[in-house]
C-alpha cells in the first residue's frame, strides 16, 4: 500500500494549472485534498505520472456572493470543514453546512474539497447529490477558456463527469434560495462517516418555482425528479408540491435507474426519499 512513483508540481494560479494539465505526453491529474486520490494511489488503482497540486491556488480557495445575481461562488478547493463551520456565506438556509458536517470524519473534512469530491464523482458522495438538488452550475477552465456545466448533467456515470480530462474545475455557482424555501437531506450509512447506501434530497421553493427531489447513491448519476415551475407556483402549499411524489412515481424512477433489481437498495432509496420529504415538510 505504497504509492507508485509520480512527479508533483504545485500550481499557484489557474493558468498555471491549466497549462500543466494540457501536457498530453504524461498522464497528468490535479491533486486537491488527496482524500480520494491518495488512497487510490496507495492501493495502486491509479497510476498518474504527474500530479498538479491545486490547493494553493488562491482563487480556488475563495467563496463569495456574486453581486450580479446573488449566487454563491464556491471555490473548488474550499474544504468541507470550512463549509461545516459556517465560514462561507450561506445562501441555502443551512443546507450546505448540514451536508458538509455529515461527510466522513473531521480529519477527512479538513482536507477534502468540494471540487475534488465533484470531480471524483463517487455516486455515494454528498456534493454530487447536493449540487443537482440546488440546481448549481459548475465552472470549468481549460485551454479553450471557461464554461459552465449544469450540475444535473455534470455527472455522466459512476466516477465520470462532463469535465474534459485537461479541464480544471474552479468553482461551483450555487443559486440563492428563497426565504420560504424548505429542504430535506437524509442519507443511510452503515456507520456515521461511511459512504451512503442511499441519499434522499428534497427542495421546495415555491416562490422560485422549484420542486425537486433527488435520489442518490445509485449506480451512476443521481435520479432527479423535477416538478414544472408552473405547477409548483400554482400549488397551494409545500405539501401539495410533495404530494406529486407518490411511492409509485418514486419506485418507477428507481426502477428506471436500474436499482430495482436489488429490492433492498430500491427500498432504501424509497425510504430515504420519503424521509427527506418528511424533513422538508416538518
Amino acid at each position, binding site marked *: *500500500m*505504497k*504509492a*507508485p*512513483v509520480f512527479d508533483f508540481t504545485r500550481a499557484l494560479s489557474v493558468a498555471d494549472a491549466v497549462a500543466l494539465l494540457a501536457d498530453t505526453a504524461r498522464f497528468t491529474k490535479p491533486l486537491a485534498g488527496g482524500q480520494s486520490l491518495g*488512497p487510490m494511489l496507495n*492501493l*495502486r488503482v491509479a497510476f498518474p505520472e504527474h500530479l498538479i497540486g491545486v490547493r494553493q491556488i488562491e482563487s480556488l480557495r475563495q467563496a463569495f456572493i456574486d453581486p450580479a445575481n446573488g449566487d454563491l461562488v464556491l471555490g473548488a478547493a474550499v474544504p468541507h470543514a470550512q463549509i461545516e463551520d459556517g465560514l462561507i456565506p450561506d445562501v441555502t438556509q443551512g443546507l450546505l453546512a448540514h451536508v458538509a458536517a455529515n461527510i466522513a470524519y473531521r480529519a477527512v473534512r479538513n482536507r477534502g474539497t468540494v471540487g475534488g469530491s465533484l470531480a471524483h464523482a463517487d455516486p455515494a458522495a454528498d456534493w454530487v447529490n447536493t449540487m443537482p438538488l440546488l440546481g448549481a452550475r459548475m465552472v470549468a477552465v481549460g485551454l479553450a477558456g471557461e464554461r459552465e456545466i449544469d450540475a444535473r448533467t455534470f455527472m455522466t456515470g459512476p466516477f465520470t463527469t462532463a469535465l474534459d480530462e485537461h479541464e480544471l474545475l474552479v468553482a461551483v455557482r450555487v443559486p440563492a434560495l428563497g426565504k420560504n424555501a424548505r429542504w430535506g437531506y437524509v442519507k*443511510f450509512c*452503515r*456507520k*456515521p*462517516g*461511511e*459512504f451512503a*447506501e442511499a441519499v434522499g434530497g428534497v427542495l421546495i421553493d415555491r416562490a422560485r418555482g422549484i420542486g425537486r427531489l433527488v435520489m442518490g447513491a445509485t449506480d451512476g448519476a443521481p435520479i432527479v425528479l423535477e416538478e414544472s415551475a408552473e405547477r409548483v407556483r400554482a400549488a397551494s402549499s409545500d405539501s401539495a408540491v410533495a404530494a406529486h411524489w407518490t411511492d409509485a412515481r418514486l419506485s418507477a424512477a428507481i426502477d428506471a435507474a436500474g436499482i430495482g433489481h436489488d*429490492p*433492498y437498495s430500491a*427500498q*432504501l432509496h424509497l*425510504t430515504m426519499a*420519503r*424521509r427527506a420529504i418528511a424533513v422538508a415538510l416538518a
Partner: protein
Amino acid sequence: MTPILPAYSLMDHDIARARPLPTTGVGASLQRKEDRRFLAGEGEFVGNIKLPGMLHVAFARSAVAHGRILAVHKPAGFEDAVFTMADLEAGSPPVGPIRVLSSLPGFKPSSQWPLARDKVRQVGEPIAMCVAASRAEAEDIADAVVADIEDLPAVVDMLEARDAPPALVHEEWGDNIFLETLVEGGLKGDAFEALKRGAAVKVHRRLRTARQSMAPMEGRGVVCSWNTRLDQLEMHTAAQMPHINRAGLSETLGIDQASIRVIAPDVGGGFGYKGILLPEEICLAWLTRHIGRPVKWIEDRREQLIANTNCREHHYDITVYADARGRLLAIDCDSVIDSGAYSSYPFSACLEAAQVGSILPGPYKMEAFRCRTWSVSTNKPPILPYRGVARAGVCFAIETMVDAAARAAGVEPHEARLASLIEADEMPYDNITRKHFDSGDYPEAIRRAMQAIDLPRWRARQGAAEPDGRLIGVGHAVFCEQAAHGTSVYYGWGIPMVPGHEQCGARMTPDGRLELRIGAQSHGQSLETTLAQVANEILGIDPDHVRLVHGDTGMTPYSTGTWGSRSMVMSGGAVAEACALMVERVRDIAAHLFQVPLDQVMLAQGRVSDRAGGHSLTLAELAHVWYRQPQRLPPGVNPAGLEVIGGYKARVDTGTFSYACHAVAVAVDPGTGAVELLDYVIVEDAGTLVNPMVVDGQIYGGTAQGIGTALFEEMRYDSQGQPLASTLADYMLPGATEVPAPRIIHMETPSPYTTFGQKGMGEGGAIAPGAAIANAVNDALRPLGAELTELPMSPRRVMAAIAASRAGGVIGSPHAAKGQAA
C-alpha cells in the same frame, strides 16, 4: 499442586464491595503501568524498529483463488531481488512446508509452502518475495513479477465444498474434509428417538455465521537479522506466542531452537490473529541469512484483509427438543466449519470444529446430545481461533435456538433458560459432553441481568407504537467461557502445542526491585500491571518496583504463550509461586542476619522483621546486604540467593469457567433494516478479579468486537473466491458510534482450582453479543413474523427477513443456505 495461599473465600460481589478495597494487590483497580509509555507514544512496535542496513520486503501474491502454477517470472534486472520457493528449497538445509498434524483419527494434514509451490489455494497466497531499499520499491518489483497460473475452479462455499465440490483443494485427500467428528452424550439410539417423538417442542433451523477478518490495530510484522557473534537468528515479530513461533521456525528452517531468538516487542492487539507461525516469518528468516542484511516486512491492511487468516465461518443444521415449558431435552446438530485452505501452525484446522462439538451444550443440562462436525477446506485463507474461538458461533446457535424453543412454548426466554441451566448447588458439574464446570451460579446471572435491563419496561414499551415507527426488542444470551485449558484438554488433539506447566523466573535486583520473567506475552491484557499486583499480594513489594519481562525467547521460560484467556491463571499462578519461593529466600537470609529462628521472621508490606520487633529491613536493604555486603552473611545461609523459578499447574487443569449473561434492548428500523442498541447490560462472573478495572476493559473491548460479529463484520467472497473487501471501507468494523457503554455487573465466584480463585476472562465479551442481539432483533421482528438466522444482521439481511415473512412467512433469511448476501 496445592495452592500456596489459602483459597480465597467465596465472596459475593456485594459483600466484596463492603470490605475496604485493596489499593495495590489482588483486587485493586490499579492504573495500568504500561499506559505511561503507550499514552506518550513511546511504545516500541515492530514497525518502529530500524536496523542499520535494513532492507524492505514486499510479496507478490496470488491474484486467483485456485490454480496450478506453471511458471514464475522474475522481472528482468531484478533476479537477485526476487525469491521463489525454488530458491528457499535450494538452500542448505532446504526450507520445508508448514505441516500441522493432529492425532485426531481421520485428520488430513495440508502442506503449506511458505511461498506457493505447484499450486495456489487462496487469493493473496505469497508467490515471490521481493526485497528493496524501501517498501515502495519492493512493491514496484512485486508488481512486475509475473506468475503463469492455470485457473482451477474455486471452492468457495463450505457446504458445496463438502457435498458437491467443484474441485479439490488438496487433490491427495480425495475430498475437501480436514476432519469429521461426532460427539454424543446421554440417551442414544431408540431412547433418543423416543425422546424426539415425545418432545412437546421441536425447533429446527439452519444458522450461519459470517467469515470474519480479525482486525487488531497493529497488523503483523517481522524484522529480522542474523547475529554472527551468537550465530543466531534474531526475529522481532508481532506475535502472541513467541516460543511457539521459535519451535515452528526451527522445524521449517531446519535449524536448532537455540539458534533462534524470537522477540515480540510491544504488540498492538492479538485476539488470536497473532497466534500463528506465518509463512512470511519463515521467508524473512531465510532471507536475512541468505543476503546477510536485516530485513523488514510490515503487513499492510490490504494483506491483512485479503491474504492472511480469517475466523469464525460456521454453519449449523440444528434441531432442539424441549418440553412444554421450554426446558431443554436434547440437541441434534450437524455443523460445518470453513477452515480455509491450510491447517495453521500450531492450532491446526481441527480446533474450531472439535470445540464446536464439545461446547455446543453450553451451561445447559439435557438428556441427549449429538453433534457431528466437518472442518472443510476451501480456497479462502485459513481460519484461526479468534477471541472467543468457536464459542461466539456456538453461543449464537444454542442461544437463538433456546429463544426459538421458548417462543414455540409460549414462555419468556429467560424462563426457558432458568429451567435448563446448571444450578449453583450442582457445582462442580460434569455436563453431557463431560466438560467440568468448576463453579458458578448461572441462574443468578440471568436473574440479575433481567432485573438490570428491566424486562417489564421494554415489554410495556413494545405495547405502544414508537413515534418513529421503529420496532423495539429485548433479548439476552448466556454462555460459559472455558479458559486456561490445561494438558488434559489439549493432549487429545495431538497438535504441535500442548500446554503444560507454566514457569516464572523471579530475580531481586541489588536495590530490591523485582524482575519477573514469563513466557506468556502481554499485548493488551495489562499483564505488566496485574502480575505486579500478584507480586505485591505475596511479597508486599510496591507494584512500581516490579518489572515484567515477557515476549522474548532469549529471556523467558518456555510457554505456549498468550491464548485461551490463560495468562492470569497460568502466569498469575507461576508468579505467585515464584514470589512465594522468594519469600522463603528472603526470610532465610533475614533469619541469618537477625540471628533468630526462621519461624520468628515475617515479611509484611515489603519489610522483613522478627516477631519480637528487634530487627527490621526493607527488601532493598536486605538485597543490598545479599549482593553488596556478603561479608555480613553468616555461614549456613542458602547460597541459591534471590533468584528463583516458580512453576504452576492448576490442581484440576480442565480450565476455569467464567460466564456471563448479556442482555440488550434494540430498536429495528423496518424502513432501512438498521439496528440501534438502546441499552446493554452484562452480568459477568470471572471469579476473583485481580484488577476490576482491567477486567472491565477486557469486557468492553470484547463486547465491541462481539457487536462487530453481530451487526457488521463480514468477509465476503465472490463465486471465483475473490475477496470483496480489501479496505476497511468495505470491511465494516464497529466504531465509537456503534458501541454503547455497557453496564457491567460483577459476580465473584472464585474458582476452587486456581491460586486466588481467578478465572480466565479475556474472551467472554466477544462471545455473547451475536446471540444476545440476534435474540433482541428477533424479538423486535416477532410481530412481523420475521426471524434472522444469520450473522451479521446487516440491514440487508434484516430487510430480506422482513420481505421473506411478507412473501409467505418462511422462517429465516433466504440467504441462510448459501450466505453470500451482505
